[in-house]
């Protein structure tokens, strides 16, 4: 009988805090369900505040001890028991998550207040409980070191996300929620099947133990393929994104922020856990190229289609599609040929930084879009002119979040890009360097487009249809600013060579180059154009170019619609399963 792996790590001091990270939201959920009425909001806010203290304590503990925190639940050692384990990646994700949750909570207070004439209302009750639940599921994902516990956490996340999608109960969002639920459930079943195959091969589900014993045998290859594809379906990586645009574009803004900024990061983080920690030597170089290739397609499709949108929220939803693709570019760059596997290093740090920046920035952008919507009563891009003067803070929040995503100094995304570019150069994979640069231009193009649209001169003076709370604008802006500072703070001291003076001539030039290129792309492809004098001049001069590129953009839109049909998306999932299988087998 093969020896059962013995525990390699023992409980570390202060690791009890990880239990708190897990149970504080659970206590909040239970209390909110019972208390109901007006207490739901208060319970949620108090829980989040308490949780923030716990996360800070965890980060402090981690910095004190300088190594991963490990906790055996029930004092049972793995493989029999379940281990909680937090490494640097978990801790920064925990911190960023609680910040985003808190920002969304402050913002949502105005939208999800129980009306005075009712003792309890559906929307606040559901929203606050599900916000806590999403947070709970994510914390579990970040600290659980067990493949099956991760499955339960994933399901928790799905069940919490689905009501957020269809909170307003329109047929369109109910349909989006059903698509999301069914596709996500299929994804989790595939993940579960992979997990059981791993158990069948090694007799343990503990990620740390698996990292030491796992090897490429038929069961683990199939398991890796199943788990990866299942998780990609839940992350909505192109071409498995059938549910993302309607779900993220149709939900109320605070809910969209939760879905776009947080929920997709859960399954993404588990992909990292599997490729880097549980089965590091299984997937191999070729499969990583395939994965990043999907990411590159996501960037291209997501960005181009974002430029062709007529509604702001859908534009942001497609931007999420593109940014999810960006997250997967780091996989081939983190492959170490000497080890034959994926190693923690600069590439992974870059990928996580990107995920964190996206979390804060995207939450801020959706929140800003919600404020614009409330003010105008619509979010049609063609009628955005003058909005910057009407709600300057909201537009500023959108702009700051967008600029952070573009990767201009000194944002987290800039650092992420720099780390990834260095890794691409170091490993000789120039094609990913090109993709990273191109992705920067594409991101810049749609961010600039929205900013320019709001700056235009309105045909008729704009009137605000509704007043928005100042606290909401501040929350959005604060989160946007966080995407500059937070990731840096979370990472602690950085090597000096990464940070340069943003106003130095070289840095300014590269920013200008990025902005110029992005602007050109936006002018060439976008559907809506800002009413600005130089734009009109450009359009008059470059009509054929716009016709060609705009037509190409429409082709992308058509392909996207085709890919998002259910049977096609299902077939894509099966095709990906087979493709990953072939690329792993062929890669060795």
């Amino acid at each position: 009988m093969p020896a059962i792996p013995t525990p390699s790590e023992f409980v570390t001091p202060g690791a009890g805090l990880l239990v708190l990270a897990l149970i504080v939201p659970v206590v909040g959920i239970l209390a909110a369900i019972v208390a109901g009425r007006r207490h739901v909001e208060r319970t949620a806010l108090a829980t989040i505040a308490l949780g923030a203290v716990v996360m800070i304590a965890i980060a402090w503990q981690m910095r004190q001890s300088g190594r991963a925190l490990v906790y055996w639940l029930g004092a049972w050692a793995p493989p029999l028991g379940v281990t909680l384990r937090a490494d640097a990646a978990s801790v920064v994700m925990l911190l960023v998550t609680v910040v985003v949750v808190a920002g969304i909570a402050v913002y949502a207070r105005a939208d999800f207040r129980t009306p005075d004439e009712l003792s309890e209302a559906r929307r606040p009750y559901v929203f606050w409980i599900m916000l806590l639940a999403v947070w709970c599921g994510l914390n579990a994902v970040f600290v659980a070191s067990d493949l099956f516990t991760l499955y339960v956490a994933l399901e928790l996340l799905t069940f919490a996300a689905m009501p957020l999608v269809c909170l307003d109960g329109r047929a369109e969002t109910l349909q989006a929620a059903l698509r999301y639920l069914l596709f996500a459930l299929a994804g989790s079943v595939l993940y579960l099947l992979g997990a059981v195959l791993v158990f069948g091969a090694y007799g343990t589900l503990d990620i740390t133990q698996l990292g030491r014993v796992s090897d490429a045998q038929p069961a683990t290859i199939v398991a890796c393929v199943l788990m990866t594809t299942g998780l990609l379906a839940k992350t909505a990586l192109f071409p498995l994104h059938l549910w993302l645009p309607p779900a993220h574009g149709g939900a109320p803004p605070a809910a969209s922020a939760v879905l776009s900024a947080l929920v997709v990061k859960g399954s993404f983080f588990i992909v990292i856990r599997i490729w880097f920690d549980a089965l590091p030597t299984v997937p191999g170089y070729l499969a990583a190229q395939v994965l990043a290739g999907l990411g590159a397609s996501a960037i291209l499709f997501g960005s181009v289609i974002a430029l062709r949108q007529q509604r702001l929220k859908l534009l942001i939803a497609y931007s999420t599609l593109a940014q999810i693709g960006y997250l997967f570019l780091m996989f081939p760059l983190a492959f170490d040929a000497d080890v034959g596997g994926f190693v923690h290093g600069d590439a992974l740090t870059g990928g996580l930084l990107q995920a964190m920046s996206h979390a804060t920035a995207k939450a801020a952008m959706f929140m800003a879009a919600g404020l614009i919507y409330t003010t105008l009563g619509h979010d049609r891009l063609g009628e955005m002119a003058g909005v910057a003067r009407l709600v300057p803070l909201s537009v500023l929040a959108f702009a700051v979040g967008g600029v952070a995503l573009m990767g201009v100094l000194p944002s987290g995304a800039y650092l992420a890009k720099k780390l990834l570019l260095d890794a691409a150069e170091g490993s000789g994979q120039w094609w990913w360097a090109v993709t990273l640069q191109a992705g920067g231009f594409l991101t810049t193009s749609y961010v600039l487009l929205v900013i320019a649209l709001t700056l235009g001169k309105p045909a008729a003076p704009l009137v605000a249809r509704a007043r928005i709370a100042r606290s909401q604008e501040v929350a959005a802006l604060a989160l946007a600013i966080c995407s500059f500072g937070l990731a840096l703070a979370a990472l602690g001291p950085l090597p000096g060579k990464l940070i340069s003076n943003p106003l130095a001539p070289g840095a300014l030039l590269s920013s200008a180059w990025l902005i110029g290129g992005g602007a050109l792309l936006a002018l060439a492809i976008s559907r809506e154009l800002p009413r600005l004098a130089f734009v009109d001049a450009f359009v008059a001069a470059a009509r054929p170019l716009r016709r060609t590129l705009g037509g190409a953009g429409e082709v992308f839109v058509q392909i996207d619609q085709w890919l998002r049909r259910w049977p096609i998306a299902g077939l894509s999932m099966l095709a990906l399963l087979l493709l990953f299988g072939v690329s792993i087998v062929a890669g060795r």
Partner: protein
Amino acid sequence: MTETTLFGSCGALLVGLGLYGLIVHPQPLRKILSFNVLGGGVFLLFGVIARRGAAMGFGGDPVPQALVITGLVVSFAATALSVALLLRLHAVAGTASLSMPASDLPSGGASADATTKTPRDA
């Protein structure tokens, strides 16, 4: 042919059948049914792996067996939630189809109204 070979192949085939149904059936209720067939196959594979680990007088490794029970309960919750969602979609839209374009749904299309405090009821 051993017991685990037989039931293992059966589980794999059920997974294949479930996946096929999930993809090609146009009615969501049939998709949910297919999802349950798929789940049955996955759990059966759990059972086979548990059975392979029979030792110490246990008829199977108790850990994967316990995981199946947890999995069955989660799977029931998933089914109940999807059915409830499906019934609600049907009540609001008169159809439960996932293939129908959102713009053709009764209250869908351009009149998207995400921030209203009181959404309309069907």
